[in-house]
């Protein structure tokens, strides 16, 4: 074992997250023990007993690697993101929420205030609907920001490791680089620069879809490309690196690894791709197009599941 002082320091902090990214570290299995032996964990509230004070006490810029998982939706998240930036030599947006806003980014389709009221007062399971929300004093809720932000929309980010949860292979390669002391260039994405389709083992033949189906409506052929069977699969517009784990398990890709390099907006790329392969037979100027996309009720949910906050439009129109 190396002496304590020579070990790289690591912290793992949380924003608006389900903590699934933290759990994904457990996927490392026994090799997690090698990692924890080789590094000094300064702060990791979900894994070890550590408090915010422990992170605050560390000298600025002294933590080699800070993983931040989760989006930034309230003032607590914002404070944590800024603190992480201050303490980190290298800040990693860990998981789809940190990298692209993720699922919390979908609040950009409405107003956070409305959602807060809905969740804390409007739900049918809540007994006392009259109890007001507290934003001050003891037991106060952190104030919501105007929308959800990806980490790099509020602070400078060095490295991205997207995924919901981050795929094991990518996590191991990040830790591999950190432990070997290899410098990681700013702006590095721990993901493939090719699409999910390159890694998908399904047979891809002729993309000409007559009708779209929602996933539960049909029993898809386990060998053929899901898109060819009329199921919306985000594979063609999404970065690989996950070894197409969803597609190979008969589930369509939902786009958690985000847009391909130089694409910026994976949702619109997918809309473009999908519209060009869904066709009517004997298309003519009299063809009726009205029903062709009827099955798509929620374009944001279908194409921007994880990337709303970082998409080109970013959020619904501000009223």
């Amino acid at each position, binding site marked *: 074992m190396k002496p304590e002082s020579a070990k790289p320091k690591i912290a793992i902090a949380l924003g608006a997250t389900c903590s699934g990214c933290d759990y994904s570290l457990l996927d490392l299995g026994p090799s997690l023990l090698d990692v924890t032996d080789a590094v000094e964990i300064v702060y990791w509230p979900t894994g070890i007993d550590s408090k915010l004070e422990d992170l605050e006490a560390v000298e600025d810029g002294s933590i080699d690697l800070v993983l931040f998982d989760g989006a930034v939706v309230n003032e607590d998240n914002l404070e944590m993101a800024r603190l992480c930036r201050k303490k980190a030599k290298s800040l990693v947006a860990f998981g789809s929420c940190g990298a692209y806003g993720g699922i919390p980014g979908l609040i950009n389709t409405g107003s956070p205030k409305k959602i807060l009221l809905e969740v804390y007062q409007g739900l049918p399971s809540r007994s006392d609907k009259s109890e007001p929300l507290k934003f001050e004093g003891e037991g106060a809720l952190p104030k919501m920001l*105007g929308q959800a932000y990806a980490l790099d929309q509020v602070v400078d980010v060095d490295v991205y490791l997207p995924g919901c949860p981050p795929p094991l292979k990518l996590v191991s390669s990040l830790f591999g680089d950190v432990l070997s002391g290899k410098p990681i260039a700013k702006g590095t994405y721990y993901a493939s620069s090719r699409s999910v389709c390159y890694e998908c083992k399904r047979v891809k033949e002729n993309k000409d879809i007559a009708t779209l189906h929602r996933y539960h409506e049909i029993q898809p052929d386990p060998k053929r490309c899901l898109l060819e069977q009329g199921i919306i699969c985000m594979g063609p517009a999404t970065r690989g690196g996950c070894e197409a784990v969803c597609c190979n398990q008969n589930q369509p890709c939902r786009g958690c690894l985000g847009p391909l390099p130089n694409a910026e907006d994976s949702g619109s790329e997918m*809309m*473009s791709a999908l*519209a060009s392969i869904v066709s009517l037979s004997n298309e003519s100027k009299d063809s009726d197009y009205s029903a062709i996309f009827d099955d798509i009720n*929620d*374009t944001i949910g279908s194409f921007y599941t994880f990337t709303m906050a970082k*998409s*080109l439009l970013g*959020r*619904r129109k501000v009223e």
Partner: protein
Amino acid sequence: MSERKRLRIVALLCRWCSYAGADLAGVSRTKYASDVLPIKVPCSARMDPQLVIRAFSEGADGVLLAGCHPGDCHYLKGNYKALRRFMLLKKYTSQMGIEDERLRLEWISASEGARYAEVVNEMSARVAKLGPLNWRREIPIET
């Protein structure tokens, strides 16, 4: 014309029909609203949803797409693809709160200079009624 701030309507025009139509409107000295910014693209199928979304996100108040009439595409099927993309894109933009009038697809042939002027005038009037879009991709953080 009444005094108002000039709008920014981006027009993506297919080079074979609609751009030639716009040219015809020009050489015929047809008067039309000056809010429009024509951009020549190889085919209406080149009107990627990303171009439209980028236009809105970077300050366009309206986007006009125009191509050859169905059946007349120089590349046979390009305008059908454009139509399908438009229909899907429209679902997205309306879900994002962009009004219907701000995004329009029209078929304008090379001989329809007058039609081009009419479409531009109509669209400019409708968008003017809605006012500028001023898209904000992010709400700035105050603290």
